[in-house]
């Protein structure tokens, strides 16, 4: 088969029936995007560990195998390297693979395939070859998962040119960004904040409506402080900002980066030049984390606009804990304190 992707404007779903006014969860939104991709593009293949008969350990692929069959929704043996290596082969052979790595914590057996092969194929062939694919993986803490079910390894991949890194923070973004990732000519690592899988719910268009990869999302506009965040930290930052705006009468801008790589530098700089203050919030360990890169961009290109030192709120520089997870994860009180510190400088 050699069908091409139906243009997004013409994409319709014959099989999804639900009330668009009823909010759905992020995991439902992801499921719906996969369903519609499988439906509209015969080249799409969804595969990974436990994605078929059981519908995925988080139920993101629920019902897909029953609808589209075992040849297109494949339960794979327990080999992450085999899953990503196979995705590479499928992509070169003209398919659109959507590989699931069950937890981001388990992506490392496939690290070689991703970093050495998937991300470098286009470059090393001078653009002669490419392997567009989507690698979906749940990441992040807040579910009592301890050391090996909670990590946020995005910075390993944003340090790897050739693969895009996308992290949604709402059900609508999850669906729209995933649909775009499926149309991307380049491989996309699509990291899903699993703490947000089932709550909060949000309104999501029923018809497939891709949201472009690249542009950050303005969560709320403000004039005194820019907060840069992504994934599960967006809600945390919003909660902190809401409280501080009420108590201190300040105006806080929140930017959800959404696409971490390539970075939306223009939005970051425009915001900081407006507010003169910057706070980066991420749950990965602080050192070498993604917020450090934003800090560097601001230091290089907007330092003359700064009214206060920039600040990072992040995880401690430790592996992810179990018993004291609630201390480790950035929470609204911690973010609020950091906001006050930057604003009160």
């Amino acid at each position, binding site marked *: 088969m050699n069908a091409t992707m139906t243009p997004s404007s013409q994409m319709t779903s014959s099989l999804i029936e639900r009330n668009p006014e009823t909010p759905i969860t992020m995991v439902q939104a992801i499921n719906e995007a996969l369903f519609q991709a499988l439906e509209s593009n015969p080249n799409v293949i969804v595969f990974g*560990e436990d994605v078929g008969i059981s519908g995925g350990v988080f139920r993101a692929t629920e019902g897909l195998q029953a609808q589209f069959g075992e040849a297109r929704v494949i339960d794979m043996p*327990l080999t992450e390297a085999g899953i990503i290596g196979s995705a590479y082969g499928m992509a070169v052979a003209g398919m659109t693979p959507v590989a699931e790595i069950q937890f981001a914590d388990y992506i490392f057996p496939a690290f070689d395939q991703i970093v050495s092969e998937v991300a470098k194929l286009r470059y090393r062939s001078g653009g002669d070859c490419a392997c567009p694919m989507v690698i979906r993986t749940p990441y992040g803490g807040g579910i009592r998962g301890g050391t090996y079910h909670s990590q946020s390894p995005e910075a390993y991949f944003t340090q790897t040119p050739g693969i895009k890194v996308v992290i949604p923070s709402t059900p609508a973004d999850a669906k729209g960004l995933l649909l775009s990732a499926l149309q991307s000519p380049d491989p996309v690592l699509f990291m899903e904040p699993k703490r947000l899988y089932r709550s909060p719910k949000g309104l999501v268009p029923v018809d497939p409506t891709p949201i472009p990869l690249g542009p950050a999302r303005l969560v709320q506009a403000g004039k005194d402080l820019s907060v840069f965040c992504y994934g599960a930290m967006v809600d945390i930052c919003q909660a902190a900002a809401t409280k501080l705006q009420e108590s201190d009468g300040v105006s806080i801008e929140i930017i959800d980066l959404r696409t971490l790589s390539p970075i939306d530098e223009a939005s970051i700089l425009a915001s900081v030049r407006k507010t003169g203050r910057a706070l980066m919030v991420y749950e990965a360990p602080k050192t070498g984390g993604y917020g450090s890169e934003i800090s560097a961009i601001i230091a290089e290109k907007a330092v003359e606009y700064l009214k206060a030192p920039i600040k990072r709120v992040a995880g401690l520089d430790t592996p992810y804990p*179990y*018993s004291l997870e609630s201390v480790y994860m950035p929470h609204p009180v911690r973010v609020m304190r950091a906001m006050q510190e930057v604003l009160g400088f």
Partner: protein
Amino acid sequence: MTVSASSQTQSTQALIGFDPQGEMPSNEVLLKMYTLMLTLRFWDERSLKLQRSGRISFCVTTKGEEATQVGTVAALRATDWVFPAYRQPGIPLWRGANLESLAHQIFGSAKDVSLGHQMPNHYSFHHLYYASVSSVIGTQIVHASGAALAAQAKGTDDVAVTYFGDGSTSANDFHSALTVAGAKKAPALFFCVNNHYAISLHVSQQTGAKYLADKGVGYGVKALRVDGNDVLAVYQTTLAMAERARRGEGPALLELVTYRLNPHSSSDDDARYRLKGEMDGWIDKDPIPRFEAFLLEKGVLSLPQVDALKIQVEADVLEATKIAQETPLPDWQTLIEGVYAEIPATLQADLDDLLAHEQGLSLPHPGAFPL
């Protein structure tokens, strides 16, 4: 040119059972084995109750797989290194760990030896030659090859062993491990606990090989299939392969054929995928009643002794978990302990900042584990 099968004297196809003429443990050891199997079963039941009532976040059980733990460890030396997966609490218990220490781990309490760093069932007992458990699948397998090379280098006749599931035989490190051990004739035993499921994936979908043990052949590793629900068959085979390895005759892959009677974990719904009717045959092969019947028949135990033992074991498990439940969580300093041998100054400063501003605050409670 002739094809020699001498390195593969035992067919991987024959399922090895108990040999009445084979090596037998003493009655005292038999009793210890049975008691531990009972303990593991009650430990599972109690853990699940604690999880269902929200007292612990998560648990994995070993129900149905007790013989694979007890039969192997009983045939090993206390100094043979063990690199476990997450379904082998029987090994430290055999070697003298008390139930209370396991209970502190599943509660992540202030008395947990791992400082509350890991999810339940990820024990660490270095002094019992039982290496800390990772959640990552199969990474431990190759560690046994390394410890076996260490035994060779030191000139001891210790062996190193590792446990892993059927799914792990698809993971990179299984192949790395057998490559290393096979090439170096390292004294390692690879216990593949084939419980038929890797979460939802049935073993028949995991590989094109007829038997998992067949995977040893290509690496030059002696491979056997053992009735993993017959604790004495497991004991006898382990003993023979350990002695063989101690003599310098090389590693062995033992596929212990068993069955996971519970879901993958407290978060798994096995009704979605378990093959209809498959469970029934395996309940009949439950290793505990089988062993119990054997001991009663041989007169090692009497029925009143069995009843008394069950009451005692259940009470011991309950007591241990009660103590752990009443123990507070670790203090915040443990968050940064154990990252390096020495705590970096910057890390201490980051924690001190949290201690100064956040101790005593009511912090948001994390959500539930979905897998």
